[in-house]
């Protein structure tokens, strides 16, 4: 019998600890030089909800918001995922109890964390074994259909955390500015998996964007997905050497899809999967719109000293494959 090596990862709206990452920060583990994606191997994903009401939201409303979030992810084209509600429990999220628990917890000490996800996986196979989500009840929450001024939309935040629960990390498709009081404010973004949430009252993050859908489809790639979607790949280099941690976006002007990935080794290699066949514009930029540890663990050095740069050729992405590898040469700031 193979001994199972278990690993725990905690993910938050603003905190991510990832031992190994792929494009879209698809979480994974390296086994014998081979990348193994973290994903649920068995469906449906059974989850439980902590039986605790908070001001403005009952446990039943939390469960409804979670189920809507899961149903939203399940509609991703070429992906087959399913879920099952197991019931209300007294168990708390983040307890290592062998069941997937989602619930409110008061964490006033985490004054910039709306919610967080952790999970346990087999780092030989990548199979997810348990995942919990806590929603920080120190904030004001809303389940109103159209959102509610001054309150964070529970379904939006739940859908983001459920993206983590399904096995992928943060997107960098967004622009922020530093708040005078600390932290960051979103100016604009194009992924619900961006690590910084929209302000209270906003409900836009209920709906996954092209980047989110590509990320999920890449984690749960079906035969249809592999056949119908393609990849852009290549390197980002600075003065001839690879750039680690560059954010590379692919834009299809026909569809309007904007999908991101990262260079994930010291050679500066990147692969952006889940692309509809077509011509793409590639852009590389430093990862400077969120805290680096929202994307990478603290043990790596992310290169930020370069300017946003476009690749000088359009890139053809075929169905079921990839075009020629490209090299995006960036310049120092």
């Amino acid at each position, binding site marked *: 019998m193979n001994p199972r090596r278990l690993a725990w990862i905690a993910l938050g709206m603003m905190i991510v600890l990832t031992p190994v990452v792929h494009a879209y920060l698809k979480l994974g583990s390296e086994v014998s030089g081979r990348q193994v994606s973290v994903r649920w191997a068995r469906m449906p994903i059974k989850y439980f909800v902590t039986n605790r009401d908070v001001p403005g939201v009952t446990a039943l409303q939390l469960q409804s918001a979670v189920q809507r979030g899961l149903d939203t992810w399940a509609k991703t084209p070429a992906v087959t995922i399913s879920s099952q509600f197991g019931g209300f429990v007294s168990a708390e999220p983040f307890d290592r109890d062998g069941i997937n628990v989602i619930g409110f917890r008061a964490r006033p000490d985490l004054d910039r964390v709306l919610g967080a996800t952790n999970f346990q996986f087999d780092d030989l196979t990548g199979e997810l074994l348990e995942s919990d989500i806590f929603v920080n009840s120190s904030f004001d929450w809303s389940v109103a259909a159209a959102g509610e001024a001054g309150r964070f939309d529970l379904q939006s935040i739940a859908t983001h955390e459920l993206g983590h629960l399904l096995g992928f990390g943060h997107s960098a498709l967004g622009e922020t500015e530093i708040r005078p009081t600390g932290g960051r404010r*979103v100016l604009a973004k194009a992924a619900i998996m961006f690590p910084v949430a929209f302000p209270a009252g906003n409900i836009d993050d209920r709906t996954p964007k092209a980047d989110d859908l590509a990320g999920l489809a890449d984690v749960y790639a079906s035969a249809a997905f592999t056949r119908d979607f393609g990849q852009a790949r290549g390197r980002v280099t600075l003065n001839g050497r690879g750039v680690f941690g560059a954010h590379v976006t692919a834009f299809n002007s026909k569809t309007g899809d904007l999908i991101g990935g990262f260079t994930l080794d010291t050679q500066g290699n990147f692969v952006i999967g889940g692309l509809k066949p*077509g*011509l793409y514009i*590639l852009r590389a930029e430093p990862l400077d719109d969120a805290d680096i540890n929202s994307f990478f663990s603290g043990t790596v050095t992310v290169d930020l000293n370069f300017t946003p*740069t476009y690749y000088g050729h359009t890139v053809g992405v075929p169905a079921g494959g990839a*075009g020629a590898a490209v090299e995006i040469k960036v310049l120092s700031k």
Partner: protein
Amino acid sequence: MKPLPLVAFLLLAMNATSASAQTAAVRAGGPEVDLGIVWTRGGSYGSANANLTTPAGTPQPLFSVATDLGPEIALDARFAVRVAGRLRVEVSGTWGRADVRSHITGDFEGAAPATATDRLTVYTVQGSGIWSFRIRGKLQPFVRAGAGWMRELTSDQALAGDGRIANAGVGVKYWWFERARGGLKRLGVRAETRAVGRFGGLELGTKDRLIAPAVSVNAIIGF
């Protein structure tokens, strides 16, 4: 004295006279093969923004892209036969190159404007009808219209897109050599201008069609 050239000239002259009398019959009958070059003007495939969404729900471009297709130069081969009266049908094929250019501006983070390019290979196969106004004399004006299939390929041949192509235009054939007998009966040139519509293909931008003028010059061999 070498009388042979003179004899040959006289024979040709007699043939020419004979051919002139039979021009209509000769031109209406035999198949024609053309080979030439076609130039097709490019055009815009529209512009698009790589949009982010602001907290207010409004789009915020990360950058903007305007895509156009440069002029295409193609080799053009055709085969035509008469089907009725002055009407011919023609099957033609082209093989050409054109540059697609995406002009990138307005970067949110101040990146320098850039142009991303690729050289596309374009194949077409079309069927057309050609109706001649007249078939006497050296000049033979005509109108034409047709449609067919188009394939566009990226320079690395990784991506191909099929589409439709249609054309309508006018032209003229000029015959400088004709004879009534023999396998090769006519030699001439053909010039024409036409509007070419491209639909689909690689879907280079927000617009899925491009209508542009084209000019071609071909050498014609008539049988």
